[in-house]
């Protein structure tokens, strides 16, 4: 008598909680992977940053001395400064992408071809972009200096001069990033409400006023995504630096992520603790942006409901 009742209650626990449990079951694989590959390593890195460790032998607890060394390390400040330059200048990709998107948002014969050509730099690998630009900048045979030569200006050693090197690499990075922003805006422009444009036109708006007051507000979602990917792209700027200069000349083109790699993982590196300390600083910088993004997404969500 009692066994079927028991079976029913057992079966019904899941039935009773199905609505609450099922989403978690679906989420479980993602949550586990996220915890294992994102959250756990964050704490692991923070932990390693308190040790002196070469990745092979014993790890020695050194407390905050890695951070203290960072405080005195000129190379760290150079990297930090370059990171800020990257963050600010990389944002130019957004207006540039918008401009190209507006330019291409018309119906002309072969517009698809033009769009693909403009999108092309984003498709090719960053490594190729880096190589192309290092040839472009080459002081003896590079196109840039050939052109400057025609105008009568002396050759500029863009990638070998500590004053220009970071800007030179950023220019190379903006090229594909602009293409990325352009494609985001092109899709955004498709969603612009033609009735509002009609209405604005009737009210006599055109040109920049139309753009500023009617088009751009409607592109807000695209702008937000473009902003997010550009900020993240700027902070991740690693491959271009590695290809174009290797951090040189004398470390003047390093950013934090590259410096971390150099200190912890490169040929002459293997100071895991110090590298982890740099990673923690980089994480804190990113955290500001991540928190802002999450906050504004949350606000949008609330507003949407």
């Amino acid at each position, binding site marked *: 008598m009692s066994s079927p009742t028991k079976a029913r209650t057992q079966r019904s626990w899941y039935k009773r909680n199905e609505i609450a449990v099922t989403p978690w079951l679906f989420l479980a694989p993602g949550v586990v992977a996220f915890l294992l590959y994102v959250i756990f390593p964050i704490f692991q890195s923070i932990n390693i940053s308190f040790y002196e460790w070469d990745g092979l032998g014993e790890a020695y607890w050194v407390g905050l001395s890695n951070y203290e060394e960072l405080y005195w390390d*000129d190379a760290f400040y150079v990297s930090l400064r370059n990171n800020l330059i990257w963050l600010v200048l990389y944002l130019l990709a957004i207006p540039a992408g918008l401009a190209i998107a507006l330019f291409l948002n018309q119906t002309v014969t072969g517009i698809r071809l033009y769009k693909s050509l403009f999108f092309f730099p984003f498709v090719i690998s960053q490594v190729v972009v880096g190589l192309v630009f290092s040839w472009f900048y080459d002081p003896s045979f590079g196109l840039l200096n050939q052109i400057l030569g025609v105008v009568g200006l002396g050759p500029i050693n863009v990638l070998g*001069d500590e004053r220009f090197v970071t800007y030179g690499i950023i220019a190379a990075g903006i090229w594909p990033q602009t293409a990325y922003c352009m494609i985001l805006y092109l899709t955004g422009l498709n969603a612009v409400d033609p009735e509002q444009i009609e209405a604005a036109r009737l009210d006599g708006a055109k040109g920049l006023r139309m753009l500023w007051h009617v088009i751009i507000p409607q592109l807000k979602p695209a702008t937000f995504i473009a902003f997010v990917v550009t900020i993240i792209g700027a902070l991740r700027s690693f491959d271009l630096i590695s290809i174009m200069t290797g951090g040189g000349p004398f470390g003047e083109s390093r950013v934090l992520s590259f410096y971390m790699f150099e200190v912890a993982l490169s040929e002459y590196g293997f100071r895991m603790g110090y590298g982890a300390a740099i990673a923690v600083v980089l994480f804190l910088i990113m955290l500001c942006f991540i928190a802002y993004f999450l906050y504004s997404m949350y606000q949008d969500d609330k507003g949407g409901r």
Partner: protein
Amino acid sequence: MNLFKTTAAALLMTSGLVVSAQAEGLSGTLKIFSDMSNPAPRAAMEGMAERFGALHPDLTVEVTVIDREAYKTQIRNFLTADAPDVANWYAANRMKPYVDAGLFEDISDLWASPELADLTSTKGAMTLDGKQWGVPYTYYQWGVYYRADIYNELGLSEPATFDEMKSNCQAIIESGRKCYTIGTKNYWTAGGWFDYLNMRTNGYDYHSSLLAGEIAWSDDGVKQTFANWRELLDMGAFVDNHTAYSWQESLPFMVQGDAAAILMGNFAVAPLRDAGLDDSKLDFYQFPAINSAVALAEDAPTDTFHIPANAQNKEAARAFLKFVVSADNQTLINNGANLGQLPVNAKSSVDDDKFLQEGFVMLSSNSPGGVAQFFDRDAPAQMAKIAMEGLQEFMVKPDNLDKILARLDRAAKRIYK
């Protein structure tokens, strides 16, 4: 039936005997990880493995060639996780991290065997803590490779002193060329210049004490070295914009005749020849003396084979190392058709290539001060990195010298503790 059984048993026994006889030879698999990824060295490595395999038919020799630059970071992973039986690396301080971590096998016993008696000249470079941790398979000289035709045209001869070096350079500059090409995008090219300038100014012992952290970078001796270097910089001896070029990218200046010479290892000869400089145009001289009170010393980096501590087939690995350093194999792999470098075995013969001959004579009879490995092999890796960066900065901004030296002293305090 009975007869059949006995025959079978006898057969089994004989085959058993054969197996045990082969075990005394070598069996199993010998896994070799190599960084000899350039075409010629790769062929030399594969040929060597093939010949060793032919000597030991029951041994399977597996060679994995890894890109030379990538190898430098991968070695840490595979030594701990998935160790081969034999691995390439470099001599002197570059092997210290792995020796300290217990990842290389102590092979002092192998060095005590008669087969290695002819390698004594390189024993020091393979010794740490009084034990030997690997065997060398090749080394090469450094020196000045120059355009003989340009020197002839200007009536110059190979310099023997720093003053001659400078007066030659002045003549070259006046002819509208640069004296030396260099590509400091590879920081180590500047390390080579510092090695020579410092060894010539202060001598081998001073230089090795400096790189071992026993002398401060702000020492007056070091400052004298930089003062000598600065004389060359102020003359405009080096090509412009050298920070933008790797060492390979710096070679065309010499090929096109815009620069007259390069301070480099013997591996530069192959690309220079390929670019069209034959022996009438390309020649070699030993870096001239600067301070006549110090004995001449040279850089001669040695490349090596090691047995990882976690290797599976150490018996075969030891046999392979003996094979690598044997006189015949040394003659063969270092000849012009293969590595084109110097053999480590005193009983081997050096290829009759003029640069190898000249280098061999220089290292064996005209380097009384000693033979160094190279800046980034003698100094600890971290120190080498930060110092070579400083050297590059000095070459561009000589006025920053005091700042650079102070930075190096600060780093040294941390690294050599």
